[in-house]
């Protein structure tokens, strides 16, 4: 079934292939970048919306 879907996408040609690969590489790079970010930093960022809470207890 998946072959059918891809076939019906039509004539992708070289440009499409290059872009698909480029995007995939970009995606891998971003994922690696993100996976190497330190936990404390990520925790701080996720809690930014709460820093102005006067009665915020903290997570």
């Amino acid at each position, binding site marked *: 079934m998946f072959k059918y879907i891809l076939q019906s996408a039509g004539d992708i040609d070289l440009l499409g292939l290059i872009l698909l690969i480029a995007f995939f590489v970009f995606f891998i790079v971003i994922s690696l970048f993100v*996976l190497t970010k330190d936990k404390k930093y990520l925790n701080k960022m996720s809690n930014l919306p709460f820093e102005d809470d006067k009665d915020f207890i903290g997570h």
Partner: protein
Amino acid sequence: MAQIEQFSYDNAIVKKFAYATVVFGVIGMLVGLLLAFQLVFPSLSFELPYTTFGRIRPLHTNAVIFAFVGNGIFMGVYYSLQRLLKTRMFSDLLSNIHFWGWQTIILAAAISLPMGFTSSHEYAELEWPIDIAIALIWIVFGINMFGTILKRRENHLYVAIWFYIATWVTVTVLHIFNNLEIPVTFTKSYPVFAGVQDALVQWWYGHNAVAFFLTTPYLGLMYYFLPKAANRPVYSYRLSIVHFWALIFIYIWAGPHHLLYTALPDWAQSLGTVFSLMLIAPSWGGMLNGLLTLRGAWDRVRNDPILKFMVVAVTAYGMSTFEGPMMAIRWVNAITHYTDWTIGHVHIGALGWNGMLTFGVLYWLVPRIFNTKLHSVKLANVHFWLGTLGIIFYAIPMYWAGVTQQLMWKQFSPDGFLVYPNFLETVTQIIPMYAIRAFGGLMYFSGLILLIYNIVKTIKSGELVANEATEAPARTNFVAQGKQHWHRWIEKRPIQMLIASLILILIGGMAEIFPMLLIDDNVPKISTVTPYTPLELQGRDIYIREGCVGCHSQMIRPFRSETERYGEYSKSGEFIYDRPFLWGSKRTGPDLHRIGGKYPDSWHYNHMLDPESMSPGTIMPPFSWLLTDDLDTSATVAKIKVLQKLGTPYPEGYEQIANEDLRLQAKIIADNLRKDGIEQEGLERKEIIALIAYLQRLGTDIKKLSEEGK
């Protein structure tokens, strides 16, 4: 040690945008209701030019997108940006110019659209003077937003802010390129691009208006208001980084999925399909991040209507971002294109994602800036159910109608004939579905009325904290010590973010649009296609003014069911002088690309005067003013000159004799009408003559090829 600074958040501007959001929610949805009921009771066009479906459809779309959602975006951005950056907005003056400027633009739209001043580009219908105003106010917003970011006390930019930055820069690019037009008069312009190129630029814009006006800013709002309402941080900050970059890169390419099986070159269509499918991943990244933020807290969702609104909103976002890519697959699109399924899909996103999230934010935010509690949690719950059920009663009839109609269009008898050769039969079948949809819209709207009552009572019980006093440490400039360069990189982030987003979103647009503009082969020329005559041009502009493109397409797809019904399928070379393109997105009425020569002139005359006389049972409203109003030929010269400048090969100096040719052609048509018994004073001068000339020209150029061969 950084010094603690005292300052205040501006809530007055948030209040203004909140009020505007609600007011225009009412207006935009009322127009929508009128449209929905017009399809069931055609007399609701009141036989006036200002209230026909074709003219008020863009009023509805512009009102709900730019007035309702637009003000909702600004309400949410002005509230969250200040608090995330621990600073007041850069300039109170700019905040107010932004607010009043935006509402003035909405007023201009409300006046100009029913008057028929339209470019016909979907969600960019507003004519050139208003386009300039939009650009100016958008720049004001940008300066205010970036000024705030640059003067921030909080160094780090929370993910919501990236979405706001990407929104701002992309909407700027989209607005500029889809509104490249040359003015002809104060209220009329011609786009720089024609035919296929115009179609591609329009749908690059159209889909990205969805992406960067309806999606990314609201994802930003979700990333702030959902954690706030749930009092828990977002599920995965890592995921938010990844899906943000993926989303803004991939989304731009999806535009051609609006043009599948049309005269757009195959490679462009395919890119649209493939990238639309890839888009499921980052979109669902956002949805999952939102829903999983509530993991373990579902008991709170049961008791808190605000969380309920947000859950339905995020779920609807997930639904429509799955449905959309499915509809971008060619063989699914063959069933859904031109039908009500598209409208069903739109409204899952619009009513579900945008609407419900706006309501959730309003219920959360208004009590806080008025320093009080929500008047009635119970009423908010009732609103929630009305909204959710309203969406269901809206969408399901649309799916039913869409599939029913397309299958009827495609049905052949065993002998190879169309089972439903009369288009009208396929419309009459689905009117009960239109009635149910109107009921669904009514339900959804009644929920909004409950919101207004609830919010007004809430406001009355409290008092606006116009300037919310707060304090925060001043931003420190980091001294070189170990982690130095990492911090400095973050400090420069807003500008880098802006530039990186800009580059990413430009790639898709350039890759798809440049080849269309530069490579001639993409639009094979047809020798017998010539420019419209002056009379036909005037008729075309009347067609645009009346919004005919809202119900009638001009793009016959290469399916046997379409060639049997309408004639030869549409070729890209036929549209090279079409400014703007008029391929259309919906067939409430039949495709008109090869209507030329199908009916006598008098048929069109009678059809415009009273559609029921030529098509009994039709839902098309009458256009009787076309028969009584004189054609305004004062702009003919300007029109020809602008088109010449844009490359249409009218002979040099032709504009001097254009009106003469116009009158000669008008006389021929008027004589034809008289031969069929139509008597009218000053017939030659009426607008109907121009419209007939245009309609009779449609699709006839390629027939001259076969005549040449004889």
